């Protein structure tokens, strides 16, 4: 939104009354939400619940990026889509679903692949970025782009019965590269198509990503910056890990960064940025 919203309409006061009466949110927090823009990269298992709850909370603008279209096998976890919207781009399906819940949110669908050419220009238009992607190459790309565009990155991931959550590049916490300077060998990486995932696991992590976004936007403190949440759904355990601070030696967020432009992340990781590529090439 270009012109900041400075007062809440009566309709907004009625609609958000249950969270307005929280002293930690209040009118100030609700206005911060109304003036905030959040880019959700990936409208899949993580992106769906994150988008739903950020739309519900009254986020001013939601960017919804996904290169893919809705398939029936997505619906066991991607709950913002519907049977009727199978074959529709996930970005527009998600935007449609969010607007049904809250028509006052400006939802912008991006039916495209994030890459080194388009990432920076796009990210600069948003305040907060959610990593709801499903592959290593895009995770490195998004990390580096968030450093360069100075945006906090709320990162979630899920596989089988497990989920992980953290916040990168926020309040002197580390970035993805501070933790993982070298990409994993491609043969050690398992995606949800191959490894499977119980649908509600990304549901839980995506909700937690929405909560972290609200906390960043409303300056509520105690985010998962420099902390990592490990959730094991099979054992029913949550563990919070204290992480290293930002690393001065980090090649992208360190004191003397050597990576100052986006690179070729598929080459860097030795893996594709999507697992749909070969089927698209067949068409």
């Amino acid at each position, binding site marked *: 939104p270009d012109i900041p919203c400075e007062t809440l309409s009566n309709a907004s006061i009625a609609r958000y009354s249950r969270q307005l009466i929280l002293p930690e949110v209040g009118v100030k927090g609700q206005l911060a939400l109304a003036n905030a823009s959040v880019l959700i990269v*990936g409208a*899949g*298992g*993580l*992106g769906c619940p994150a988008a739903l709850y950020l739309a519900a909370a009254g986020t001013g603008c939601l960017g919804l990026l996904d290169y893919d279209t809705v398939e029936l096998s997505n619906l066991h976890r991607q709950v913002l889509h519907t049977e009727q919207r199978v074959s529709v781009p996930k970005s527009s399906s998600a935007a449609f679903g969010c607007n049904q819940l809250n028509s006052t949110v400006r939802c912008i669908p991006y039916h495209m692949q994030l890459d080194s050419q388009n990432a920076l220009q796009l990210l600069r238009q948003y305040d907060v970025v959610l990593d*709801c*992607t*499903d*592959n*290593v190459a895009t*995770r490195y790309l998004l990390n580096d782009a968030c450093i360069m565009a100075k945006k906090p990155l709320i990162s*979630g*991931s*899920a*596989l*089988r019965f*497990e*989920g*992980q959550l953290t916040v990168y590049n926020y309040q002197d916490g580390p970035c993805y590269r501070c*933790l*993982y*300077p*070298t*990409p*994993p*060998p491609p*043969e*050690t*990486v*398992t*995606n*949800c198509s191959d*490894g499977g*995932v119980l649908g509600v696991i*990304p549901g839980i992590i995506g909700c937690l990503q929405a909560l972290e976004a609200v906390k960043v936007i409303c300056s509520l403190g105690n985010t998962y910056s420099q902390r*990592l949440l*490990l959730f*094991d759904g099979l*054992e029913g355990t949550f*563990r*919070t*890990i*204290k*992480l*290293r601070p930002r690393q001065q030696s980090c090649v992208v967020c360190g004191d003397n960064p050597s990576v100052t432009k986006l690179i070729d992340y598929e080459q860097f990781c030795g893996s594709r940025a999507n697992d749909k590529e070969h089927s698209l090439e067949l068409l």
Partner: protein
Amino acid sequence: MELVVSLEFSGGAELLFDKVKNHEVSLPARANGPWTIKHLLVWIKDNLLKERPELFVQGDTVRPGILVLINDADWELMGELNYELKSKDRIVFISTLHGG
């Protein structure tokens, strides 16, 4: 004297250890000096790893994409490979997840 520590594998790393996530292990006394994470990695490779050690270790450290935790803290805060193990320490090896 033996050193008893607990080892945990998660995020898929447990698949290299017969899908067993929690291991209580007794490490034999070392003649020359204390047990460090560096020694532990060698011991795991020789005693616990069932197959394909290259998916767990690379050179003398863990392979990229595995995070090591020492008593719920990132090992980077604790001295990494040189951390000296104490009795009842809990060492966790997490494979990073990338799915969504």
